[in-house]
């Protein structure tokens, strides 16, 4: 009797590390050019990084550094010129629209409304990708929308009109719509841009909490150095379409590097929690 041949099993560690990578940006690059024969207007050079469930990744850089382009590559709105962006092994660009919306939610800078709608209607839009054509919202959809509003602490806003609430409240409702999509990957494009400081901290606290509880992978585009230093697990530092560093805030935040990227004198110190804090200095 011969024992059947067995292929060697991968070790538990190998399996874990493999299954834990949710977002995999693999040598992705992009070029904006008016037409192929002309010189490109903007180039995002190939870059790579990976993110796990529950992790917050910050894409950091000054204006025109390629932050939004990178976010579009991750969201699948743009197809990388070279390389790939994988979400749980699927290239984000080639996912069908409905499947993509079930896995990736995007919170944009501002959501312009042509006709006013109420907050609950807005949040229910997040369930569109789960609804069959010509079907009305199910009880489950409504329960999920209510839960999403509760998770961002905005249940009291449900019946308010979207154009009659403050910027911070609106941002919460927009975030609730993204949560109603029940995504794996939550993308935010400059979410703190129009918020005052209290609302900024509130938003990032909820993000931190939501990422931990719902195991979202969060990617946030911003140029808020200190918010990134406080809240991000990983920083992708961009300058003029080049990725300079990928790593923890503590490893990326080096004074000379940040001064050169942001063109401003500054100091970096470590807080007791091991988080970097940046202080901008006057140029004179």
């Amino acid at each position, binding site marked *: 009797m011969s024992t059947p041949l067995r292929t060697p099993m991968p070790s538990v560690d190998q399996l874990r590390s493999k299954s834990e990578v949710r977002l995999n940006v693999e040598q992705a690059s992009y070029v904006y050019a008016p037409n192929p024969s002309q010189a490109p207007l903007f180039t995002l050079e190939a870059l790579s990084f990976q993110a796990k469930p529950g992790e917050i990744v910050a894409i950091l850089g000054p204006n025109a550094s390629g932050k939004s382009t990178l976010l579009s590559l991750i969201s699948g709105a743009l197809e990388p010129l070279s390389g790939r962006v994988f979400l749980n092994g699927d290239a984000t660009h080639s996912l069908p*629209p409905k499947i993509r919306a079930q896995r990736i939610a995007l919170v944009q800078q501002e959501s312009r409304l042509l006709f006013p709608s109420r907050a609950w209607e807005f949040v229910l839009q997040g369930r*569109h990708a789960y609804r069959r054509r010509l079907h*009305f*919202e199910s009880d489950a959809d409504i329960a999920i*929308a209510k839960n999403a509003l509760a998770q961002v602490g905005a249940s009291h806003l449900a019946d308010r009109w979207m154009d009659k609430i403050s910027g911070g409240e609106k941002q919460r409702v927009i975030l609730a719509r993204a949560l109603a999509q029940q995504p794996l990957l939550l993308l935010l494009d400059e979410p703190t841009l129009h918020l005052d400081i209290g609302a900024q901290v509130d938003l990032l606290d909820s993000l931190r909490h939501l990422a931990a509880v719902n195991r979202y992978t969060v990617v946030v585009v911003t140029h808020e150095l200190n918010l990134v230093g406080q809240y991000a697990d990983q920083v992708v530092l961009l300058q003029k379409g080049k990725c300079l560093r990928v790593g923890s805030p503590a490893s990326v935040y080096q004074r000379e590097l940040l001064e050169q990227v942001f063109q401003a004198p500054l100091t970096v110190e470590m807080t007791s929690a091991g988080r970097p804090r940046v202080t901008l200095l006057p140029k004179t």
Partner: protein
Amino acid sequence: MRPLTLGRLLLRCGILAVILFLVVVIALKLGAVQVSLYGLGRDLVRVLLGQSSAISTDYGMIVVDIRLPRILLAIVVGASLSVAGASFQALLRNPLADPYVLGISSGAAVGAILALMLENQLSLSPEFAGLSTPLGAFLGAAITIGAVYLLGRREGQIDSTTLLLGGVITASFLSAIITFLMSTLAGGNLRGAPFWLMGSLSTLPPRTLLYIVGIGFLVAAGAIYTTASDLNLLLAGEREAMHLGVDVPRVRIVVYLAASILTGLAVSVSGSIGYVGLLVPHAMRLLFGSDHRVLLPTSALGGAIVLVIADTLARTVVAPSEISVGAVTALVGAPFFIYLLRRRLS
């Protein structure tokens, strides 16, 4: 939270259907020849039972053969223009979009006139003759939307002011072409410039064309209705809609083609009746909210109501003469357009 249910949708449509019925009854009664409600009811029952031959009175003939078809035409044209207006508003993300204001009706009219001229040249067999006008009008509408869309783009984005200006100029340019064609090439079955420029329901088109318009409305409006929830999201912008799971290119092409069909069909039987597509969807939004699953069917019914009323006014106010129904809708619609524009700018 009070999400939409089928019951609430049907209730809203039911209320409007009852209003439409009442308006139709009144419109049948009004006119140069007065008819009693009893006589009206009796004759209508006979029509429904297929006993038209039993209607012997001249009054009955006037109601059944002249007023009723004209009212049915007003219903289909009004519904088509309103659904087209609501669709263009969503597609172009512009609350001031309307087939007439954007020159799409004029484009359809030019297409219809050219088709009629070509038809005279080619001397087609009668079966195809009825088809060429709506087909020409559809092509005219589709090409005009494409042109206005390109005019309204600035740096890859639709700019609503540029879009409106482009549409108004296109409308004026196409009206000049209509006037030119009418004055140089007037021929046998071509109707006059006032019909194409202002619209009228006074001459009943051939029966085949009526069927085409009716069936075309059901197909095109049905196609648009399948995208109703997508249109709700498209209002927030194409990029945002895409990230919420809308297949943007597919929705765009369906709505673009179907709205062109609706405009083309309406124009081929009634000329360019303006502002119905602007007024009615706005009124329905105020009454029932901006969810397209409600907005599209209520706009269809509301458009029917409005055009039946407008046409009844057009044929009774200066009786025994008539004014163009497009003049009636413009008298109400143009000031309303200004009001909306001012409110948006402030």
